[in-house]
């Protein structure tokens, strides 16, 4: 996370830039000195959603990831409200534990990243000896020539050549005209045709990430207006989408 000035239309705001939803959550936990092992989920969801509004406003490329986390938080919140079923002897798992583990794991790497930043800072002050360009011709083999070539270079080079020389193969990436209302309409057509549709089935055919994110937003919109219902049997299992009470 870093402090940065963002210009938004006609006013400037000082807003911490978050690397992702986990970064934002860690910030919220630290800000209010919350216990990471006993996160007050209602409060944090509320704070999170407030930030989410700003993030959406800023139209960051990673906004979709923030939206996904909002859904996770709301799901955890819902689970916390459910009565814990009487388990035989064993303790029921805390609905928050998965998230806590993710946060702790992420935090470790965030710390490592800080260490890297320090090293980078020190190292940037020293300059390596740069020998002058070749003073003689030497016999070399394949490995020597490839020593400085990465697979990435080969990929990029080919990609570049295709774009520039091979007319029939290069295809312009058309601007995707896609909106939540269109994607919502598409979803309703699907639900008119069958009782239920599966989330992964819909997503599979969408292609670009942009379309996937927009469709996901459309789904959230339709759930909110109670036109559709989304259900899940287990964590990470597929989501079933059905017509809601206001479907029409």
């Amino acid at each position: 996370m870093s402090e940065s000035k963002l210009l938004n239309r006609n006013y400037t705001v000082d807003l911490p830039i978050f690397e992702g939803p986990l970064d934002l959550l860690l910030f919220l936990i630290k800000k209010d000195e919350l216990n990471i092992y006993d996160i007050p989920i209602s409060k944090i969801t509320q704070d999170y959603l407030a930030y989410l509004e700003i993030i959406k406003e800023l139209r960051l490329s990673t906004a979709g990831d923030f939206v996904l986390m909002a859904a996770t938080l709301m799901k955890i919140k819902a689970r916390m409200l459910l009565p814990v079923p009487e388990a035989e002897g064993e303790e029921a798992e805390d609905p928050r534990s998965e998230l806590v583990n993710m946060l702790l794991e992420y935090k470790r790497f965030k710390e490592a990243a800080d260490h890297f930043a320090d090293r980078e800072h020190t190292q940037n002050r020293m300059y390596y000896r740069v020998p002058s360009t070749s003073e003689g011709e030497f016999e070399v083999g394949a490995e020597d020539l490839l020593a400085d070539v990465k697979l990435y270079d080969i990929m990029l080079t080919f990609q570049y050549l295709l774009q520039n020389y091979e007319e029939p193969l290069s295809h312009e990436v058309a601007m995707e005209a896609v909106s939540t209302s269109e994607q919502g309409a598409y979803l309703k057509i699907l639900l008119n045709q069958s009782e239920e549709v599966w989330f992964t089935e819909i997503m599979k055919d969408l292609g670009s990430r942009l379309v996937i994110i927009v469709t996901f937003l459309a789904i959230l919109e339709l759930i909110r207006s109670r036109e559709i219902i989304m259900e899940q049997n287990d964590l990470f299992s597929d989501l079933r989408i059905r017509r809601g009470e206001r479907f029409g």
Partner: protein
Amino acid sequence: MDKSELIQITEALLIATPEPLTEARFAQCFDSTPDMSLNEIIESLSAFYKETDRAFQIFKVANGYQLVTRKEFEPFVKRLYTRSARLRLSQAALETLAIITYRQPISRVEIEAIRGVSSDSPLRTLLERRLIEIRGRDEGPGRALLYRTTTEFLQYFGLNSLQDLPKLREAQELIQDEDESLV
């Protein structure tokens, strides 16, 4: 070949080498095994550079030795490079790199699972700056591309080997921190 000659030759190698002078590269320059170990020679040269207050020193990096300018001359040396100013890595790139470093070889999906956010752009930056490279594919069903750190990575961060890096903190320690910060 006497010792002083051996030291001189090694100095020439240090001046001419475009990458760290490792034991292997050093050995390759001689027909028979030299009378002094590379370490011994380096120590002797280092002592001389220190004594005579040279503007450079020998740096142990990427499992070898390389000459670097001393830190205090940075304000002057950096002006040689005005056009390609040393761009520091973004926070996203550092996080992504940290994950790759400790978990390599690793796929993009696994990185994103830890970061909780899509990581195309930092991966691209790291590839372009040659700090990571593509290395093979996952055995799993997705056959995802795997990434790992490069020798350039070691040089960039002034590391002799990956073992030089501190261990990732255990989850247990992090929890203790949390407890302490609760007051």
